[in-house]
């Protein structure tokens, strides 16, 4: 082991990216070589300073900045997309999400896999859970109506106290996802209905909600 090696391998040594043999060799060398030990000490101090700099240099946004930024982004995006239903969802909750499908009729094409006749989800009181309703449409649709009817004690986040929510929407060709984040406020449970209507056709999801 020579002193040149510490310069060649300094980064990997401090990052603990060398193999065991090289790490051991450099450990032994720096323990005996004051010059290399000093180089190593300075590098470790530099790294610690860079780490410290990470926090000390970082400005803090004011308390409401994130709220304002989210609201502004949503308002700006909504203006551009008004009357157009965008695919949306909760990426972080996908593992727990229940994915449902509407099967084909005159306006909807069949999904690739079978549809559960009535889906069931279990919820815990006051613990939000996301249900993704996935609509597959053969053609773009406008002027469709979505109605969500909730059993007593089950609410959609953001719509506290409402048992029925209806809005006009559009579907694009292919897969469209509607995420509903539900909260159980009582142990009653019951059946949730999500009905999509277009012209004289309609399809309904039935979701049995049980509350633990």
């Amino acid at each position, binding site marked *: 082991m020579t002193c040149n090696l510490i310069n060649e391998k300094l980064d990997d040594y401090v990052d603990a990216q060398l193999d065991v043999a090289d790490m051991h060799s450099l450990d032994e060398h720096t323990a005996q070589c004051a010059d290399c030990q000093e180089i190593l000490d300075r590098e470790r101090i530099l790294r610690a300073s860079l780490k410290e700099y990470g926090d*000390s240099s970082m400005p803090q946004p004011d308390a409401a900045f994130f709220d304002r930024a989210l609201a502004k982004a949503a308002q700006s995006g909504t203006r551009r997309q008004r009357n157009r239903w965008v695919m*949306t969802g909760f990426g972080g909750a996908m593992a727990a999400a229940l994915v449902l499908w509407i099967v084909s009729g005159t306006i909807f094409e069949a999904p690739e896999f079978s549809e559960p006749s009535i889906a069931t989800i279990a919820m815990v009181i006051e613990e939000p859970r996301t249900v993704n309703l996935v609509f597959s449409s053969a053609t773009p649709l406008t002027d469709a109506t979505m109605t969500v009817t909730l059993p007593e004690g089950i609410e959609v986040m953001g719509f506290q106290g409402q048992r029925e929510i209806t809005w006009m929407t559009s579907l694009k060709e292919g897969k469209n996802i509607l995420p509903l984040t539900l909260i159980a406020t009582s142990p009653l449970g019951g059946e949730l209905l999500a009905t999509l209507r277009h012209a004289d056709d309609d399809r309904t999801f039935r979701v049995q909600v049980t509350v633990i």
Partner: protein
Amino acid sequence: MTSVDQHQQASFDALLRPHLDRLYRFAFRLAGAKPEAEDLFQDVLTKVFARMGDLVELKEPGAWLCRVMYNHFIDGRRRYARQRLVSVSEDQLPEKSLESLPGKLDPVRDVERLDNIMQLQRALDSLSDDHRLVVLLHDSEGYKLSEIQEITGDPVGTIKSRLHRARARLREILSADGTISSL
């Protein structure tokens, strides 16, 4: 605002909020100044709102968001990074910098540490944009090389080389001005 708008906004909020702190820090590392970082942050959030569908099937939306921000920053680099051309002066440091440093019961030591932090900042500002970004993401923010690769699209070998050169340059600058021995 209609009920569907409210629902979209609630979905957007729930989807993005867990990633906002990291995204804000990333914006600041890219832009280097608070006003430009907040412009970048806002613009990316607005852009992402229209692409919520892309997030649905992602296991790690945080990395995707950083990649979107990085690409957006590269496209508008002149706008978001103009403050980099201005040298840093003491009054530009956040007021709480000194308070956030350990050892605040020792005012003399605090002043020395603040001075060292400013020297480090000047040294960082002298690096190229690519080198500074890599060393800040890796050594200050704790990103792994693979995460930087995922965000920038550059090969790990290239990133590692930039990191090596950036550290070497910092050592050179901070040794020459005597900062590194007193850090």
